[in-house]
C-alpha cells in the first residue's frame, strides 16, 4: 500500500486549480444558515469564474484527524482554495496548510490559527446584533424583548452580547429574555424547530414582542411562533424576509442580522482566482458590510425613527465611539 501523500506531495497545488472546495461543519448543507450561505458563495464563484468545485459533508462524531484528512484529500486533488466552514476546522486547517503551502486555505469563524496560506474569515456578529438590539428596543411596545439562541456556544453568545448591549444602550428599561435551546455537544438546538417554537412561545407569553433568534434551522420555529402572534421577529445570517420557505411568515420578519458568509467565500475565491490570494485575518464587520441589518421588509424601511437610531448606532460602531462586547 502506498501513501496517498507521497504520490502527490511533490505536486502540491501546482497543477492548474480544479476549483473551490468547501468542507462543512456539523449540520452541513441544508442548514439554512451559514453552511448554506457558504454554499451560495461557492456556487456564485463557480459560475462567475467558470471553475469546478467540490463540497463535502462531515460525518457524525468525527475527530480532527478526519477533518485533516478531508482537507488533505481536497488539496491533493488540486482544489484551491480549500475552505473549512466553521471554527471546528481550526486545528485541521493549520495542519493541512503546512502540508500544502501552495494551496490557500479559508477558515471561517476562527482567527486563532494563523499561517502564510490561511485566510481567517471572521465576522463581527456582535456588531450586527447590536443593531438588531437597537431596532428591537425601538420596536417593542411591551418593553420586553427576547433572544433565542440555538446552542449555548461562544459564537452564539456573541450574538446575544451584541443584542443585549444594543437594547440596553437604546433603552435601559427594556428587559431582555434569553433562552438557549440545547447545550453543547448536543447541537440539536440548531436543528429542532419545535424547540425554537416552544421557546419563542414562552417568551411571547412573558410579554416579549420582539424576538431575535440565532438558532439556525430551529429559528424557523421561532419565526413561526412569532408570526402566529403577530409580533416582530428578527432573522439571522441571511435576509430571512426573502427566504422562500418562510414566505408565509415574512410580514412578521422585521429585519435580519445578515452575516455575509457567502460574500466572504466568494471574495476569497476571487482573490485566489486573480492570483493574489488573501491571507491572514479578513474581518467582516459593519465597516465592510460583512455584517449588517437588512431592510427588505418595507414596513421596517418605513419606520423612520428606528432607521435613524440604527443608522446612528452604525456610525458610532464604525467610527469606534461604540465598543461592542463579544461576551454577555
Amino acid at each position, binding site marked *: 500500500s502506498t501513501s496517498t501523500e507521497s504520490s502527490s*506531495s511533490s505536486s502540491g497545488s501546482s497543477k492548474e486549480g480544479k476549483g473551490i472546495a468547501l468542507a462543512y461543519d456539523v449540520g452541513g448543507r441544508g442548514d439554512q444558515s451559514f453552511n448554506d450561505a457558504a454554499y451560495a458563495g461557492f456556487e456564485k464563484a463557480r459560475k462567475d469564474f467558470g471553475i469546478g468545485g467540490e463540497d*463535502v459533508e462531515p460525518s457524525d*462524531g468525527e475527530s*480532527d*484527524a*478526519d477533518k485533516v484528512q478531508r482537507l488533505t484529500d481536497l488539496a491533493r486533488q488540486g482544489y484551491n482554495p480549500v475552505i473549512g466552514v466553521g471554527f471546528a476546522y481550526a486545528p485541521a486547517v493549520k495542519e493541512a496548510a503546512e502540508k500544502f503551502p501552495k494551496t490557500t486555505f479559508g477558515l471561517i469563524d476562527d482567527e486563532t490559527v494563523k499561517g502564510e496560506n490561511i485566510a481567517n474569515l471572521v465576522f463581527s456578529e456582535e456588531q450586527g446584533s447590536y443593531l438588531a438590539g437597537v431596532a428591537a428596543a425601538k420596536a417593542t411596545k411591551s418593553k420586553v424583548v427576547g433572544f433565542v439562541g440555538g446552542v449555548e*456556544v461562544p459564537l452564539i453568545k456573541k450574538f446575544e452580547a451584541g443584542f443585549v448591549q444594543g437594547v440596553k444602550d437604546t433603552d435601559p428599561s427594556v428587559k431582555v429574555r434569553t433562552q438557549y435551546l440545547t*447545550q453543547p*455537544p448536543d447541537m440539536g438546538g440548531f436543528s429542532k424547530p419545535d424547540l425554537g417554537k416552544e421557546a419563542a412561545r414562552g417568551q411571547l407569553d412573558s410579554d416579549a414582542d420582539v424576538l431575535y433568534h440565532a438558532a439556525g434551522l430551529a429559528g424557523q420555529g421561532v419565526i413561526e411562533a412569532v408570526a402566529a402572534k403577530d409580533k416582530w421577529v428578527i432573522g439571522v445570517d441571511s435576509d430571512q424576509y426573502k427566504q422562500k420557505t418562510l414566505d408565509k411568515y415574512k410580514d412578521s420578519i422585521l429585519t435580519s442580522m445578515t452575516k455575509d458568509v457567502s460574500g466572504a467565500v466568494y471574495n476569497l475565491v476571487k482573490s485566489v482566482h486573480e492570483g493574489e490570494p488573501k491571507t491572514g485575518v479578513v474581518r467582516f464587520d459593519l465597516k465592510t458590510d460583512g455584517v449588517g441589518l437588512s431592510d427588505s421588509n418595507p414596513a421596517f424601511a418605513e419606520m423612520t425613527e428606528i432607521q435613524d437610531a440604527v443608522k446612528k448606532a452604525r456610525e458610532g460602531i464604525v467610527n469606534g465611539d461604540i465598543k461592542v462586547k463579544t461576551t454577555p
Partner: protein
Amino acid sequence: MKKFDKDRLILALGGPALAIVVAVALTSVVLIASGRSPVEPYALMAEYAAHSDIQVLIVNQAATYYLAALAVAIGFRMNLFNIGVDGQYRLAAMVAALVGASVTLPGPLHILLILVVAMLVGAFWAGIAGILKTTRGVSEVVSTIMLNSIATSVVAYLILPAQFGEQRGNNLTTGEIPESGWFPGIELGAAGEIYGFVVVAALCGVLYWLVLNRTRFGFDLRATGAGESAAIASGVDAKRMVLTSMLISGAVAGLAGMPILLGDAHTYSLDFPAGLGFTGITIALLGRNHPVGIALGALLIAFLDKASATLDYNGYEKEIAMIMQGMIVMAVVISYEAVRRYGLRRQQQKVGEELAAAAAATDGTGPENRKEVSA
C-alpha cells in the same frame, strides 16, 4: 473432542462471514434499487483504503472504537447494558484534559496522571448507575441513558470560562495539555502517525481476555452473566459484581477518549468527538464480546467510516456505508443466533447419539467405554 472444536471454529467463522456477504448483497440491492452501480462503491472504498495514510486513519480510529467496545463488552459479559459509555468517556476526557492541562510533570508521570484521572472519572460516572442498580434496583439501561444526557450538561457547565474552561476564538476548551502529557506516537512519515495508544488499546484487549478467562474474578464475572442465580448460589456477591464490573466498564470507557486526547487533540473542546459509546455497542455486538472479534469489528467499522469518505468525491452518498453498517449488524446478530442454536442442537444430538451408541454397545450402564466415546 476435536470434532467439537473444529465444528466450533467453522461455526464461529462461518457466522460473521456469511453475515457480511448477506449485508453486502442487501446493500447492493439497495444500490440497484436506487439506480446505482451495485459494485463500484465497494471498489472505490477498497481503492481508497489502499492508501497508507487512510490505513493509519483507520487504525487510529479503530483503537478508539476498540476501547469503547471493550467497555461495553465487559458489561455485556455479565448481562449489563452499559449504554452510558458515551457519557462516561466524554466526561472522563474532559476532566482528564482539565487536569492534564493544569499540571506539569515529567512525561510518563504526566500521562499516567491523566489516564488515572480519566479512568476514575469514567468509573465514577458508571458507578452511579451501578449503585442505583444495586441499592435501588434501577435498570442500568435507563439510568445510563439519563446519565449520558446529564454528562452533557456537566461538561457544558465545567467547560465554561467562568468555571474551568477557556475560550479560544469561538471554541471552548480545557486548555492545551503540555507536551509532557502527550502520548508518543509511531511516526510513519508521509502516511502520518499511528497513535501510541493503539498499543495500549491492544494491551487492554489482552488484559481483558486474561482477566476474563484466566482469573477467578473473570470466572465469577462470566458466571454471573451466564446464570446470575447460579452464580449467586456459587458464592458470587452479585451486587458487588454488578458494581465492580460497572466500575471497570466505566474505567475502560474513560480510556476511550484518550487516543484522541493524548495522541492528537491534546485538549478537550466543543468539537471533541461524541457518540463513540454507541459505535462501541455496535462493535461489541459484532465482535461477540471476544477481544479478537472486537478488534476485527472495530477495524471493519473504522474502514467503513473512513473509506466511505471517497464516495462523496465520486458521486455516491456516504450513507451507503451507514446502511451497510446497519445491515451488517443485523445480519451478524441474526446469523450468530442461528449458528448458536444450530450448534447447540447439533451438540445435543451428538450427545444423544453417542450415548445411545455406547448404551447399545454395552447394553448396560457401565462407564467403561465412555473414554473411547469422548476421545
